């Protein structure tokens, strides 16, 4: 016989798993620090690539000037400037990434809390059904009248 409580819970669980749950459950395999570090690493790689491209475009823009002054240029100070900007940009991105992904992990963890509570409810219903089937309980709630 259909148990309405169980059907409702399973539907809610399935909806969650199909949508946000995918990301949340995947994320739950990590510790918070590991998750944040992994994303910091990805960000560092992407920002480095983007920065290299920006530097290349700037150098191309100044190509004529660079060719004219190829012997007199202060390469050391140029390198320092490029590196300084890189460190500055990278620091901003890494801090923002660390904070952002930590926050998103915490939010996701809360949603998973709801999910686990529903799973426990479902487990309780299964236990009730088993008890009823084993003859240890005279009645179990199918949810038609009392909902939960």
């Amino acid at each position, binding site marked *: 016989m259909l148990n309405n409580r169980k059907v409702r819970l399973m539907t809610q669980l399935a909806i969650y798993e199909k949508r946000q749950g995918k990301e949340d459950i995947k994320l739950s395999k990590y510790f918070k620090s590991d998750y944040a570090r992994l994303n910091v690493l990805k960000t560092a790689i992407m920002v480095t690539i*983007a920065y290299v491209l920006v530097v290349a*475009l700037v150098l191309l823009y100044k190509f004529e000037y660079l060719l004219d002054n190829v012997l007199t240029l202060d390469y050391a100070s140029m390198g320092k400037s490029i590196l300084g900007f890189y460190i500055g940009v990278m620091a901003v991105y890494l801090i923002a990434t660390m904070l952002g992904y930590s926050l998103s992990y915490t939010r996701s*963890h809360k949603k998973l809390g709801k999910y686990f509570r529903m799973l426990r409810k479902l487990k309780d219903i299964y236990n009730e059904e088993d008890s009823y089937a084993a003859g240890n309980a005279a009645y179990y709630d199918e949810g038609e009248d009392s909902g939960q």
Partner: protein
Amino acid sequence: MIMKLLELRTILLKIYQKARFIINPLVKFVLGLFVFNWINDSIGFDPRFTSKLITLLLSAVCAVTPGGVLVFFAMVLSLLHVFAASKFLAALLLAAYAILYGFLMRFSPKQAIAAVAIPVLGKYNLHYCVPLVLGCISTPLSALACICGVFIYYTMDIVKIAATRQIEMNLDDILQLYTDIADAVMANKQMYITMIVFTLVIVAIFLIRKLSFDYAFIISVGAGVVTNILGFLIADLRFNVTVNVGKLILMSLISGVIACLVELMKRVLDYSAIERVQFEDDDYYYYVKAVPKVNVSIPRHNVKHMSDYGDNPDEEEYSGYDGDAGNDSYEEEDDYSYCDSSDSDVRYEEFDENDFSEGEKVEYDDEDLSEYGIRSIDADEDETEQTKGTSDEGYEVDMTLDDTDV
């Protein structure tokens, strides 16, 4: 008027709920058509890719794939067109895309569609509605996608002009071309102003809609419209950026109306029935303001068959006339099972109020629509933050657990 609007909203949501498996792909398909047609119109240098068949095929693929695929295809198509005109320009455009992705787009992938929506809507001067809508449904991070969209919108014109220049591919010409493009991009004050104003609009809407005063959601849209208009007007006066004031105001207002409609579909709150309660537990003292959501039931349609059995006795028999009631009638059968407990007048018998006790969300309508931008789970949670702790029927209910429950 308001009731009619709310009824219309309920009907639209209901239609969407039933036909979302058709509506979603259809919307994506139409969006794809707009985007690919815009690319073909703007920089359609390669006639092989401007054919209707390619556009339809790409749109059809986009209809059944996630939104990110549309953005990817748009990017690839634009690169192919530019590649046909100039390999150097294509390389430059690829570098620009990579920089945009690395620095900006990576952090707001869910709003990537904004990056193509701005150029497409910009054709009709409706691009103002993108930050207004994003402010209503998303976080300030979506400004990053907006900035990408604005960049693409203004850069495409420059690329188009550059690609039409017939140059020989020697180093001097390439350098000259590149310098001209870079100068044009850097001198494009309108682009920077638009980026700044759009970011301000998103942040203003987000900050105001998070406040707990009455009608904060609608006021936030108004604030966004005002920010948009004032931002561009100040840019016009202070930075000598040419702005068509009449068009700006008109299009901002229209965009505001669109954002209000989005807000209307997302949620409607009844501020005349605010509940304020105070209670405490071991750790906190709670001051709770609970704003009920408006749930309008759709009136039942009673279709009455007035059979003139005196003139046509055959019809009397056909219509099942019983001779007692005077006419034969039936009630149109609609599935109202998604209605919540406040819709008691239209509820089917097999559901009673207890079915929805313990704050279970009234399942399928709200939850199902969240993924499609009508109403998001996050938005609900925002709501629960305002109304945290309440569990009355008809109000949002917070089911968040303690850490110990995890």
